């Protein structure tokens, strides 16, 4: 659909005092997703990762008995294919020339803004859709799940310290509560305890340091009340706020769809949230020989995923 002068009559004569233009007045702030997601580049149609489990605990060996031998476990495969995203603006030469304010020439700024927005949504949809089958991990289950399957099976949970208080089925481990829970003192304590018990595929505690509480803007005030109080929130008792020692940082993410979903991230070194760039945003221009229309276009190829569930914890809230 071309932009023509009839659609922009206000731009045809000078005299407007100010034009409030989204692209210029509300510039996108710095990107959020690189603060959390790893960023990788690809030169292929798709990338494929593989999970491998280690081995279990040593076994007691009676005097002069043989050593027991075990095998590593090959886990599942997981693929990501970066998709292509593209958008263009077509402007008549007449509008291009007659616009008295030069706004239609701001196409690249608009396209850049669109690309930035698109990148954020693609990345954070890993979280938004992480409670559904649209985003799955190596085990084929949703990113946030209360029964992630361990490659070590029931033997792994039988070995895992404290498993009985955490799991809801043998051979599984949660990174989401059985019943989703509001952001609250009780909820944060549950998340903290559950995360502290997180294990690998063989049931070994992995002792990740969960550093960040991710929340939507709607939880801003609750987060302050719970994390900024020197005493235990919502009580008159002289009890310390035990949550302060966790030293959580809060990341408020405006790209989340749910007003109530929240959770925890480890530092980047311990989770697998990743954005794959096949082609960074790339702007091109051309004009049409017959119509003289000016065409501006931005395209990119990108995907986001989280093939491994360890290192993230989440709940969809109430």
């Amino acid at each position: 659909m071309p932009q023509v002068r009839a659609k922009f009559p206000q731009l045809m004569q000078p005299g407007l005092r100010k034009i409030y233009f989204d692209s210029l007045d509300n510039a996108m702030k710095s990107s959020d997703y690189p603060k959390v997601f790893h960023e990788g580049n690809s030169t292929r149609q798709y990338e494929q990762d593989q999970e491998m489990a280690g081995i279990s605990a040593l076994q007691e060996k009676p005097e002069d008995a043989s050593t027991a031998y075990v095998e590593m476990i090959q886990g599942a495969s997981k693929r990501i294919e970066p998709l292509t995203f593209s958008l263009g603006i077509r402007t008549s030469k007449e509008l291009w020339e007659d616009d008295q304010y030069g706004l239609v020439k701001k196409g690249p700024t608009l396209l850049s803004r669109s690309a930035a927005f698109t990148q954020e949504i693609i990345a954070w949809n890993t979280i938004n859709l992480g409670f559904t089958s649209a985003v799955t991990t190596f085990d084929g289950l949703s990113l946030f799940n209360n029964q992630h399957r361990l490659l070590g099976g029931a033997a792994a949970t039988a070995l895992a310290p404290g498993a009985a208080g955490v799991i809801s089925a043998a051979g599984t481990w949660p990174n989401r509560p059985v019943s989703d829970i509001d952001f609250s003192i009780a909820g944060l304590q549950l998340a903290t305890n559950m995360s502290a018990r997180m294990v690998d595929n063989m049931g070994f505690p992995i002792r990740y340091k969960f550093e960040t509480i991710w929340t939507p803007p709607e939880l801003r005030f609750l987060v302050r009340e719970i994390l900024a109080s020197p005493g235990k929130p919502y009580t008159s008792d002289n009890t310390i706020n035990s949550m302060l020692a966790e030293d959580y940082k809060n990341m408020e993410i405006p790209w989340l769809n749910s007003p109530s979903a929240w959770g925890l991230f480890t530092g980047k070194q311990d989770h697998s949230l990743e954005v794959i760039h096949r082609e960074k945003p790339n702007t091109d221009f051309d004009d049409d020989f017959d119509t003289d229309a000016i065409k501006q276009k931005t395209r990119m190829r990108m995907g986001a995923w989280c093939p491994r569930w360890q290192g993230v914890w989440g709940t969809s809230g109430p």
Partner: protein
Amino acid sequence: MGAPNLTTHLPILQAMEKANTTPFTSAQPEKASQTFAFGTPVQLSAGGFVQAWDGATVAAGILGVAESFGQNLATDGAGAPTPPLGGITGNISISTYGSVPNQPSGVNIPIGAPVADGRTLYMEPNQDNIFEAMFDNSNGTVAANYTPTQADIGVAYGLTKDSVGPYWYVDKNKTGGSAVLQIVGIGPDGFVLNGRVRFVFLTAAIQVA
């Protein structure tokens, strides 16, 4: 009883574009269990998913010519990206093998297995797109029945699927109510036995204009 001269033909290809621009390619979620080859005429199922053309529905029967092969999906549209701006879901592979210990939903993907994204890419059968396919006759008996001639230009014919191969040919035996295309030119082979011909789809046969 006549028969086509060949049991397998070349796939239908989009050869030219009348406006001298890039031909229009579309993609729609694919119906489950489709195993067609690229170059196959496709149609929308009653539920709106892409499936191989049934070869019999002439009126508004053809959605386009597949640019991708059928992915044998387990369910309709399995794996297609989740809008808005969601990625491809599922295994992103046409095949898996074996099983993963203790993970019934986990899969082993053979390295290099082609991608499945739940959608069929197809070339639209609009009047600007000129396609190319081999000429044959499902009821032919002599060489002249299988050979395109100057007199075939402008004639409307049907399409028939190979008896052995997965592809389709322009069938001189299908005319009248069975016709879905019109010959607009002779292909690069010239007027030879089973030579390739160029055609456009008849407006009445196009499913989505």
